């Protein structure tokens, strides 16, 4: 088969953080043994759920905003080529430079090259899912460039040589004592008498990062939204580290997935209401920065925008699964998910954990590389209700379960069942045989995997056929 160059391609292997080292069930089993983790997660998800519910209830038109957000995303995807070219034209007209990256490898090469061209060896970073997805920090480090995460949670994760476990609060699996220990061990110039009081820990991070902010000439960010009509980029944050990175350096490099574009300036009136309320449970996040190209005399005078595919077009090619691209990374689905709440984010093996990760990661990588993730769900539907842009995650999960390769034993068993059920006499005999096994609670190998975590259902004392024959 010849490959048509325009065929959507999945995210390449060997780069970035979309694939775990082990399957979800294996990783989840280990996580379930960690009581501290479950306590931290239960506290976090319950608290955010409560806050979000309260501020969502304040808006009389929440459902109308959700419908508008959902339709806006679908309309954006349907017009994506046109909107991306419009965005490029407007960013360029405003003094920015736009780059296109077909995958993680190319995006890393572009960003590394741009940093090298400045002559600087250190960059400050705003928390960004896209740069985590492509493994940008590792690529920069390999080129001798030091990336410094400036979001407090990302800093905790980076100093702890750890991985993020939540989209919004990446260090939520750590408690204050663990964070103090990480700071004492890893933060240069930290006060040895540091306590585990959250305000004291935050102040230590402020002191540590202030000099870095003021002396670093290059910043890397993601983007929450990019407006095609005007070329305006938006970053929503809380701490002010984003504002520092977006205004202090000489050069700003923003990496964004191609799905983040919105058609018009007015469309932000929808998303700026949906995102903070669904995400942090605030009426508005403390800081939002918006910029269009470069502004003479104010902020970075060199701006680069990197538009990233890395499997997104493969997601777009699936008519059922493409709505996973509507995600605005609010993490509301994580906070309502009974599976996420018990296993935490690391079990998903990807930078995108929780329900949205269970549908997005396998599509970005190809289902074969993340085949266990569509099963990392109880299909309870809470994620669908919580999603501010109404992504039907349960339907995508079921759809992807069909796409995933099934184990050989399962295929053999299903083929045998189909053969038997096609033949009435054979089926009747099989039912009688099943009755004989009434007191069994376990299945023999290779089917024992199924009964390892659940009892075998008991067959009824009388089959329908016997009852029908006897009446």
């Amino acid at each position: 088969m010849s490959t048509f160059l325009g065929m959507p391609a999945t995210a390449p292997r060997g780069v970035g953080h979309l694939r775990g080292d082990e399957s979800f069930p294996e990783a989840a089993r280990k996580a379930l043994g960690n009581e501290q983790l479950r306590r931290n997660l239960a506290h976090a998800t319950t608290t955010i759920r409560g806050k979000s519910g309260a501020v969502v209830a304040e808006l009389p038109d929440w459902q109308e905003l959700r419908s508008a957000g959902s339709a806006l995303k679908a309309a954006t995807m349907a017009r994506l080529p046109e909107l991306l070219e419009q965005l490029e034209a407007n960013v360029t007209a405003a003094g920015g430079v736009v780059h296109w990256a077909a995958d993680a490898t190319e995006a890393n090469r572009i960003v590394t090259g741009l940093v090298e061209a400045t002559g600087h060896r250190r960059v400050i970073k705003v928390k960004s899912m896209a740069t985590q997805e492509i493994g940008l920090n590792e690529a920069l480090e390999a080129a001798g460039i030091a990336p410094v995460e400036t979001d407090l949670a990302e800093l905790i994760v980076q100093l702890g040589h750890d991985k993020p476990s939540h989209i919004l609060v990446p260090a939520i699996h750590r408690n204050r004592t663990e964070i103090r220990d990480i700071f004492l061990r890893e933060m240069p110039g930290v006060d040895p008498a540091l306590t585990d009081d959250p305000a004291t820990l935050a102040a230590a991070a402020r002191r540590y990062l202030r000099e870095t902010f003021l002396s670093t000439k290059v910043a890397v960010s993601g983007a929450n939204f990019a407006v095609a009509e005007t070329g305006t980029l938006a970053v929503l944050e809380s701490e002010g580290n984003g504002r520092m990175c977006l205004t202090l350096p000489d050069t700003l490099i923003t990496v964004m997935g191609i799905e983040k574009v919105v058609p018009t300036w007015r469309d932000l009136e929808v998303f700026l209401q949906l995102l903070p309320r669904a995400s942090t449970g605030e009426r508005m996040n403390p800081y939002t920065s918006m910029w269009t190209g470069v502004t003479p005399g104010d902020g970075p005078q060199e701006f680069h925008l990197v538009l990233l595919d890395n499997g997104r077009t493969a997601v777009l090619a699936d008519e059922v699964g493409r709505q996973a691209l509507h995600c605005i990374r609010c993490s509301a689905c994580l906070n309502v998910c009974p599976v996420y709440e018990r296993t935490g984010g690391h079990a998903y093996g990807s930078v995108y954990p929780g329900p949205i990760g269970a549908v997005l990661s396998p599509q970005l990588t190809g289902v074969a590389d993340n085949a266990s993730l569509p099963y990392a769900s109880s299909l309870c539907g809470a994620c669908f209700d919580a999603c501010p842009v109404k992504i039907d995650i349960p339907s995508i999960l079921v759809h992807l379960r069909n796409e995933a390769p099934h184990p050989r034993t399962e295929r053999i068993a299903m083929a045998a069942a189909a053969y038997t059920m096609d033949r009435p006499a054979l089926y009747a005999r099989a039912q009688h045989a099943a009755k004989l096994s009434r007191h069994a609670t376990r299945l023999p190998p290779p089917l024992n995997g199924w009964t390892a975590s659940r009892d075998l259902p008991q067959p009824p004392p009388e089959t329908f056929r016997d009852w029908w024959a006897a009446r």
Partner: protein
Amino acid sequence: MTSKDLILRRIRAALGDTAVPDVPRDYRRAGAGKPDIERLVDRLVDYKAVVHRGSDIAGIVASLEPGRLVVPPGLDPAWLPPGVGTVEDEHDADAVLTAATVAIAETGTIVLDGSPDQGRRVISLLPDLHICVVRPDQVVAAVPDAIARLDPRRPLTWISGPSATSDIELNRVEGVHGPRRLHVILTDR
């Protein structure tokens, strides 16, 4: 083939003839509600901002003991209290005094747009105290009203309360990197 051509081809191949859906706009649009100053005050205070009301701006600023103050070039000089000196360099400042462009009552948000009385983005970022003056005619009801008034070609900073983090066990801590204190002066006219 450039990566741009490759990505655009991939998108077109993926989409086929996908139709563009209509976007329902039956949420509350700009102009649907009246600006409510009391609600703005309530939301600002909820975000740990301190609100002052009155017309004696210079007097209120003086009472906050701003220390070394930085101001944008187009600020109304009458807002500066006599005897309080200003510094040129925001790196040396303890406090910053700015005007605003829009304030959103429903969310407790103040937007700066880099106008001469608001200045470059960095001056309202580095000092520890931000004093921001808001006029009644700048208050709008909700986010759509603000979007309708703002010019996206200007650099915009939306501020809702002082800098905050909830990254450590979800405890809210004010003041990580931005100003630790936000004082809003709501003028009478």
